[in-house]
C-alpha cells in the first residue's frame, strides 16, 4: 500500500495522474461517438492538424489553447465541408487537410530551429510537465463535454445511429455536428500536451472498441469506455513510474492490454454461447 502511496508524495505525479485519469475518461467518452460514427481516423488526423496550429500560435506569440483550438476547429470544419461539398471522400479529406497542417508545423520548426525541443512534448507527450493551468483547461473541457453528452444524449445517439434519419425526425444535425467538431478539437488540444500527437488517436479508439466487445448496450458502452479510459490512465501512470517508462506510451500500452483481455472474454463468451446452443439442440 505504501508503495502505491509513495509516488503521490510528488506533486508532479499527483498532477500527472489527475491529468491522465481525466484525459483517459474524456477520450473514452468522446471516443464512443467517434468509433460508432466510423471516424476513428479523424482523431489521428486532427491531432496532427492541431500540431500545426500549436507551432503557428507559438510563432505568432498567441495563447497555445486559443491558437491551436481555432486551428483545430477550422481543420475539422474544413474536412467536413470538403467531404460534403466535393467528390473527395472523408478519409481523403482528412489526409489532405491534416497532413498539410502538420507539414506547416514541421516546416516552421525547421525554419525556427531554436524551439524544436519544446515541441517534443507536443509530439510525444509530457505528462510530468502538467501545470496547474493545464489541469484547469482539462477540467473545463471535461465539464463541457460531459454536459453536452448528458443533455444531448438522445440527439447524439440518434445522429450517431443514422445522421440523415435523425435530421428528418427533428434533430438539428448540422448544429450538433459543429458542436461535436468543437468538442473533439478541444479534447485533442488538452490531450496533446499529455499524450502527444502520436498517441491521442489510440486513447480515442482503444477504450470504446474494448467496451464494444463487452456490451451490446449504448449507455453501458459509454460508461465502460469512460471507466476504462480513466482506469488505464491511472494504472498506466503507476506502471510508468515503477518501470521508468514514457507515461503516454505506458497508458496506451495498458489500454492495449485491456483490449486483449476483452478480446479474450468476447471469444470465450462466443464459445460458451455456441456450446449452450449445441447442448440445447
Amino acid at each position: 500500500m505504501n508503495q502505491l502511496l509513495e509516488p503521490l508524495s510528488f506533486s508532479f505525479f499527483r498532477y500527472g495522474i489527475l491529468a491522465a485519469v481525466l484525459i483517459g475518461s474524456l477520450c473514452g467518452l468522446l471516443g464512443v461517438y467517434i468509433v460508432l460514427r466510423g471516424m476513428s481516423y479523424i482523431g489521428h488526423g486532427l491531432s496532427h492538424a492541431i500540431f500545426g496550429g500549436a507551432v503557428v500560435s507559438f510563432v505568432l506569440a498567441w495563447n497555445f489553447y486559443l491558437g491551436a483550438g481555432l486551428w483545430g476547429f477550422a481543420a475539422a470544419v474544413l474536412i467536413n465541408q470538403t467531404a460534403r461539398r466535393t467528390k473527395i471522400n472523408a478519409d481523403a479529406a482528412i489526409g489532405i487537410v491534416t497532413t498539410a497542417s502538420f507539414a506547416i508545423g514541421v516546416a516552421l520548426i525547421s525554419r525556427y530551429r531554436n524551439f524544436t525541443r519544446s515541441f517534443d512534448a507536443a509530439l510525444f507527450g509530457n505528462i510530468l510537465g502538467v501545470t496547474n493551468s493545464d489541469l484547469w483547461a482539462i477540467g473545463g473541457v471535461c465539464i463541457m463535454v460531459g454536459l453536452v453528452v448528458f443533455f444531448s444524449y438522445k440527439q447524439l445517439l440518434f445522429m450517431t445511429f443514422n445522421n440523415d434519419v435523425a435530421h428528418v425526425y427533428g434533430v438539428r444535425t448540422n448544429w450538433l455536428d459543429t458542436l461535436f467538431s468543437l468538442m473533439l478539437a478541444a479534447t485533442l488540444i488538452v490531450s496533446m500536451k499529455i499524450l502527444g500527437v502520436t498517441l491521442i488517436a489510440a486513447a480515442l479508439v482503444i477504450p470504446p472498441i474494448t467496451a464494444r466487445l463487452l456490451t451490446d448496450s449504448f449507455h453501458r458502452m459509454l460508461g465502460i469506455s469512460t471507466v476504462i479510459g480513466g482506469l488505464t490512465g491511472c494504472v498506466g501512470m503507476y506502471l510508468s513510474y515503477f518501470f521508468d517508462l514514457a507515461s503516454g506510451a505506458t497508458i496506451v500500452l495498458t489500454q492495449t492490454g485491456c483490449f486483449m483481455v476483452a478480446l479474450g472474454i468476447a471469444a470465450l463468451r462466443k464459445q460458451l454461447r455456441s456450446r449452450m446452443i449445441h447442448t440445447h439442440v
Partner: protein
Amino acid sequence: MQPIIELRNVGLRYAERLVLDQINIHLHHGQFAALVGPSGAGKTSLLRLILGLHAPSHGQILTHGKHPVDGQIPTIAYVPQLETVDWNFPVTVEQVVAMGLVRQANPWPWLRKSERQAVQAVLAQLEIEHLAKQHIRNLSGGQQQRVFLARALVAKPAMLVLDEPTTGIDPRLAESILHLLAELNQQGMTILMTTHDLNAAAAHVPWIICLNQTIIAQGTPEAVFTPAVLEQTYHSDMVVVQHEGMLLIQQRPHGHSYRDLIPNPIIGEVLNPAMENPSEPAFRTAEL
C-alpha cells in the same frame, strides 16, 4: 383542404446532371401512394427532397401549403431501407423506437414513464412488445421492418414515408408489411412508399406514381399499370394481365426463357410420387 405535401414543378440537379424534372405531386390526408420506377429513376432522390434532406434546384415543396422551416417537416416520419441500417450498432429495440420521440424529448438521457408507455403501446400495436429488450441484430427481416415502423409511428406523424419496405424480405413477410401499411392507412395515416414490386403495389396500394426522372403517370393501379405507361417508365416490354380481380405485371422475356436456351432441361426427381404435376415445387434438385 391543403395537401400534406405538395411539389410544384420541382427539379433536382447533382452537379451538371439533371436527376429530377417537372415533378408535380399532391398528397392529401389519408392517401396511400407508391412511387415506382427503374433503378436510377430518381425515387430515392425524390424521397430525400420530400424529407428535406435535399433542397430542390428549382420549384417549390410545401407542407400544409407552407414552406417548411429549416428544411424539416415535423409531420413526416421516415422508415429507411433496411440495408442502410448498421445492425451491429449497440442498441435495443426499445431504444430504437424511443428515437422517434426525439422531437418531444425531455432533456434528460433517460426515458420518462409516459415515453416508455408510448414505446410499449406502439410495440404492442405491431405485436413485437416481447422484443423490446432484444438487440436489433437478433431480429428477423419482418421484425426489423416492424421496429423501424414502430419508431416512425411513435412520433405520431401525419404522414409515413418508406423507402423500399419490402426489399430483402420474403414474399410472405412483404405481404404482411403491406397489409399492416394498408391497415394504418385505413386508420387515417397518409403513406408514401417506394417499391420495385409492381405486383405488390398493384394489389395493396390504391395510388401509383410512375417516375423516371419526371412523372410519367399517376393514378389508380388499373389506370397506370398499362403496357404503354410501363414501357415509357421502364423502357421495357411489360405484360399486364387481369386474373381473378388481380392485376399481374411481368416483364416479357425477349426470347430468352430457359425453354429457348435449353431444349431438354433436367428438372429433377419427384419426391412425392403422388405429385405427378411437374409444375408443383416438389423437386429434390433443379439442375440447369
